[in-house]
């Protein structure tokens, strides 16, 4: 948990952020999902567009909170307590998701190189989808909300599956323990798919009350 490790996740530049946002919204044309390494250390997000970063999730989280405040203000339901409630709910859901992921990876002895910050980054990417959904809901009403919800859920599920597949699944071949390794690929696949399916549920849960 050192500051240097955290600095790795913030070594971003504008080009990376724009490309990553494009991938988050439209991941179907992105070809190469492999995170590149340079002598055992992963490349910084500046040099590799597949590397996870924490700038986008942090900014998206704060933007989501402000947008929730604005949405509630437009509907005349604003008060600072509600804003605090929104913020803490979202934060709690991130913590729960990261803890569940960590626990399942640990219990199933999956040797991946996903650190806690990586998991926070991947679960924070859904806020970009949430912002898009809430904006469409505010601008285009209920229909716009559902269309955007479906679009961002599909994009996010695809993104999570393709990104985590690279990190969780390939570690089978390197350290196969003999007997247990047959059950492993399925369980790992279940983890990845469960993470992906969890995203739309949480997006709906956290945004539906903002767009009535």
């Amino acid at each position, binding site marked *: 948990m050192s500051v240097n490790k955290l600095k790795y996740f*913030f070594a*971003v*530049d*504008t*080009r990376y952020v724009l490309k990553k946002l494009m991938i988050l919204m439209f991941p179907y044309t992105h070809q190469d999902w492999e995170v590149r390494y340079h002598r055992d250390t992963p490349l910084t997000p500046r040099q590799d567009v597949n590397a996870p970063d924490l700038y986008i999730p*942090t900014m998206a989280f*704060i*933007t989501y909170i402000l947008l929730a405040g604005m949405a509630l203000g437009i509907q005349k339901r604003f008060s600072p307590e509600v804003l605090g409630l929104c913020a803490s709910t979202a934060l709690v859901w991130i913590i729960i998701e990261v803890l569940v992921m960590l626990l399942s990876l640990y219990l199933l002895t999956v040797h991946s190189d996903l650190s806690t910050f990586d998991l926070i980054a991947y679960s924070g990417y859904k806020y970009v989808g949430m912002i898009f959904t809430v904006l469409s809901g505010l601008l285009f009403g209920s229909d716009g909300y559902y269309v955007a919800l479906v679009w961002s859920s599909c994009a996010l599920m695809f993104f999570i599956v393709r990104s985590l597949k690279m990190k969780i699944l390939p570690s089978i071949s390197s350290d196969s323990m003999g007997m247990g390794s047959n059950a492993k690929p399925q369980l790992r696949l279940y983890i990845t798919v469960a993470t992906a399916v969890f995203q739309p549920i949480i997006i709906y849960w956290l945004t539906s009350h903002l767009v009535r």
Partner: protein
Amino acid sequence: MSGFDNFNTDFYQSSYSVDDQNQGGYGYSNSENPYNKQYGQYDYSQPTGYPSPGMMQPQQPYTGQIFQPTQTYTPSASQSMYSNSFEDEPPLLEELGINFDHIWQKTLTVLHPLKAADGSIMNETDLAGPMVFCLAFGATLLLSGKIQFGYVYGISAIGCLAMYCLLNLMSMTGVSFGCVASVLGYCLLPMIILSSFGVLFSLQGMMGIIITATIIGWCSFSASKIFISALAMDGQQLLVAYPCALLYGVFALISVF
């Protein structure tokens, strides 16, 4: 005496160790230990090794003592200046660190967002200008009937803290909290223009939204420009401008609604 040797070795490092050892040592006669005077308790008739500038100002009892040949610790130039007269003292503004020329330069940098900024202007952090701007912002809000000084201060404190953390994580060289607070405070100047508009016209129409968006863009652009040039971050201007825009957006929300 071994005690005296101790005093001598500690003498030039800190006066407080001398003080601690001195508590039990007042039995020594002053002629043996002329350097044993405590920092805070001056007996003006004794020669002393640590004249404090505060002590020396208007009082005259040091008349003959300073120029004694046995005095091994000569006062520095500034202290002899203090002891002489008021004309030789540095001007008050320079002592306080308020440099009007720099303040004006920084204000001009904010007001011309398209001109390239000089990275060295942020070398000394000065909080006088930002304080004035915050108060002016609160005053213009007051003129339109919104008594929200508390919100202004709270949001600026939280925003400065968040920007400080973010900039420390994103830049190669670190940044001090005073520098962040100073830059964000200076770039609040266009927001004052917005809230003065709000006194005269209502900002809730289409025109108001356009003006608000322009001013938020102006504030965050100049703030990010100063940060980029002061911290030598390349390719990250929009990334720094976005959190600044969020912060100034909250200020604009206060002025508009």
